[in-house]
C-alpha cells in the first residue's frame, strides 16, 4: 500500500498510510477503536476505493491490481446466510474465488473435519452457535488458499481452546508462505504471532517495525523484584525511575543506560532476591504509550 488516504465527508479516516505484507509473514495491524483499521482493510480488499494513493499486489515479479480471488478476508462484522447450509455457503464463497465446485467441496470437507464441524455440513447456519459460525467464516477466508489473508479480530468471542486452534492454523498458513495481516486488540495474541507490527492512530501511522525491534526500541526494561531485607539502596540507584517500593516487592523501570546484567551485579549482598523479572515492556504498554503520545 502506497500513501493511502480516504475521507468520509469531513472526516479523514485514513491519511497517508503505506505498508507492505510479505509472503510467509504475519503483520500485526494495530490501533485503538476508530483509528481507521477496518477502513484500511476494506480498501485492501477492494471494497472501498482509496481517495489517494495506490494498492499494488505483486507476486513473482508481476505487480498490478489486487486480484480478488487471491485474497481472503475474515471481516470484523461477522455474518453468514442464516437459511443456507454450511457446506453450500463454503462452496459458494470458494466459487466466487474461482475454485472449481468439486475441489471446493473436498477442501471444505477437510476443513470441517479438522475444526470438529463434520456433523454440521448439511445443517443450516441458523442452527450453529456463534463460535461455530466463526469457525465457518474462518474456513471461508482460507478455503481458496489465498496469497494474502486479512483477519480482523479473529479471536474475539472465542474460548481459549478455539483461540489456540486458530493460532496454530494462522502459524501454519505463515509456514505455507501466505502473507497474513492480523488486526487485533488482544496484545498478547499479537505478541505471540506477529513478526512485524504497524500501529495507527486517528488514521495516521504511529509506530512500525519488527516486533522485537519495537520492544528494544522502547529504551527501558521493566523490573519486578520480590525480596527480603533492606532494598532502600534502589532509591537513587543509577538508571532507575518510577520506583514503587513495598516491604517485600519493588517494581521500577530501568533505562537502557544500565544493562540488566550490570544492574544484577550491582545488587548488594545483604539483600535476598526471592523472585525477579527484567523484561522489555509488553506491547500493551508500548501501544498505550504511543497512542497517548500522539494524542498530546
Amino acid at each position, binding site marked *: 500500500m502506497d500513501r493511502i488516504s480516504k475521507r468520509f465527508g469531513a472526516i479523514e479516516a485514513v491519511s497517508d498510510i503505506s505498508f507492505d505484507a510479505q509472503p510467509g509473514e504475519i503483520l500485526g495491524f494495530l490501533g485503538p477503536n476508530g483509528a481507521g483499521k477496518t477502513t484500511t482493510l*476494506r480498501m485492501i*480488499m*477492494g*471494497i*472501498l476505493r482509496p481517495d489517494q494513493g495506490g494498492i499494488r499486489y505483486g507476486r513473482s515479479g508481476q505487480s498490478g491490481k489486487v486480484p*480478488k*480471488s487471491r*485474497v*481472503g*478476508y475474515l*471481516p470484523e*462484522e*461477522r*455474518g*453468514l*446466510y*442464516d*437459511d*443456507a447450509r454450511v457446506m453450500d455457503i463454503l462452496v*459458494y*464463497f470458494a*466459487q*466466487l*474465488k474461482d475454485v472449481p465446485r468439486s475441489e471446493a467441496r473436498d477442501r471444505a470437507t477437510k476443513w470441517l473435519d479438522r475444526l470438529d464441524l463434520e456433523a454440521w455440513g448439511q445443517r443450516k447456519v441458523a442452527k450453529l452457535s456463534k463460535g461455530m459460525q466463526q469457525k465457518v*467464516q474462518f474456513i*471461508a477466508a482460507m478455503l481458496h488458499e489465498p496469497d494474502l489473508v486479512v483477519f480482523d479480530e479473529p479471536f474475539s468471542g472465542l474460548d481459549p481452546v478455539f483461540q489456540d486452534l486458530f493460532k496454530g492454523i494462522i502459524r501454519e498458513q505463515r509456514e505455507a508462505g501466505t502473507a497474513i495481516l492480523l488486526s487485533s486488540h488482544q496484545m498478547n495474541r499479537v505478541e505471540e504471532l506477529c513478526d512485524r507490527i504497524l500501529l495507527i492512530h486517528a488514521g495516521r501511522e504511529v509506530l512500525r517495525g519488527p516486533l522485537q525491534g519495537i520492544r528494544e526500541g522502547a529504551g527501558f526494561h521493566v523490573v519486578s523484584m520480590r525480596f527480603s531485607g533492606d532494598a532502600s539502596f534502589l532509591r537513587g540507584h543509577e538508571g532507575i525511575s518510577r520506583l514503587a517500593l513495598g516491604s517485600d516487592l519493588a517494581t521500577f523501570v530501568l533505562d537502557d543506560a544500565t544493562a540488566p546484567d550490570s544492574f544484577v551485579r550491582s545488587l548488594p549482598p545483604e539483600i535476598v532476591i526471592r523472585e525477579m523479572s527484567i523484561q522489555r515492556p509488553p506491547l500493551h504498554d508500548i501501544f498505550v504509550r504511543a497512542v497517548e503520545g500522539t494524542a498530546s
Partner: protein
Amino acid sequence: MSKLLRVAQWHFRQTVTSKQFLVMALFIPAIFALAALGIAWSRGDAASAATSEPLPAFAIAFFLALLLFLGAFLSAIMALYGVIREKANRVVEIVLSSVSATDSLGGIILGLGLAGLIQVIIWVALAYTAASRFLPISLSVLSPVQAICYPILFVLGYLLIASLYATVGAMMKDIHSGGPAAMVGMIPYAPMLFVAAIIQHPEATWVQVATFFPPFTPAVLMMRLAVSALPWWEVALAIVTLAASVFLLMRFSARVFETAILMYGKNMSFREVWRWGIRRR
C-alpha cells in the same frame, strides 16, 4: 460477468428452495383455484359455463397484465429482501471482497428476477388451466403488439422496481425499519389505485402523461394496451423512455448500494444517497 451469474445462481437457488417461495408460487393460487372450483360446483353450472359466451379479448389481456405487473412487483420485493438480508446478515463484506458491488447487486436482481419469472409462469399456467376449465379462453386473442410488449414491460418493470427497491434496501437498517425510504417503494404501484379510471378513459390526457412518467409506465402502459389500440409511436416512445431510465436508475442504485450497504446501524438522508448515486467513479 461470470461472477454476476454465480451470485445470481446462488440467490435463485436459495429462493426457489425456500418455503416462502413454495407458498407464494403454489399454495396461494391453489387456494384460489380450489375456492373457485368449490363455488362453481356448488352452483352446479360447471358444465354450462364451458359453453357460455367467450371471454372478451380485453378481459384476458387485462387479467394477464395484472398478473404480470403483480409478478414484477412481488419479484422486486424479493430482491428488496435479498438486499436487506445481505446487509442484515453482515455477509456483504465477504461477498464484496470476492466480487464487485455491481456484480453483487446485479446477481441479486437477476437471480431473484428469474425466481419471480418462474413464479409468474406458474401463476399464469394455473390461472389459464383453471379458467379454461369453465370458459373457452385462449391466449391467441392477444394482439401482436400485446404479445410483444407485455414480456418487455414485465422485464423492464421488474428491473425498474427492483433497482428502486435495491436502493431502498441498501439504505435500510434492517427488515423492520421502514420510514420514508419505504414510501418511495410505493410509487410504481400508485397507478394501480386508479385502475378503473385508466381502463375507462385510456386516452385521457392525464393517462397519456402518466404513460411517459417512467415509474408509472409499466403499470399504465400494460393497462392501456389491454383496452385500447395505441398509436405505435406512443408505445415505442414510452418503452424507449422506460428502458433509458431503467439503465440510469440501475447505475444510480449500484453506486448507492456500494456505499450504503456497508453502513450498518445508520439512517441515511435522501440528500446523502443522491450524492452517492450521481458521483462519478
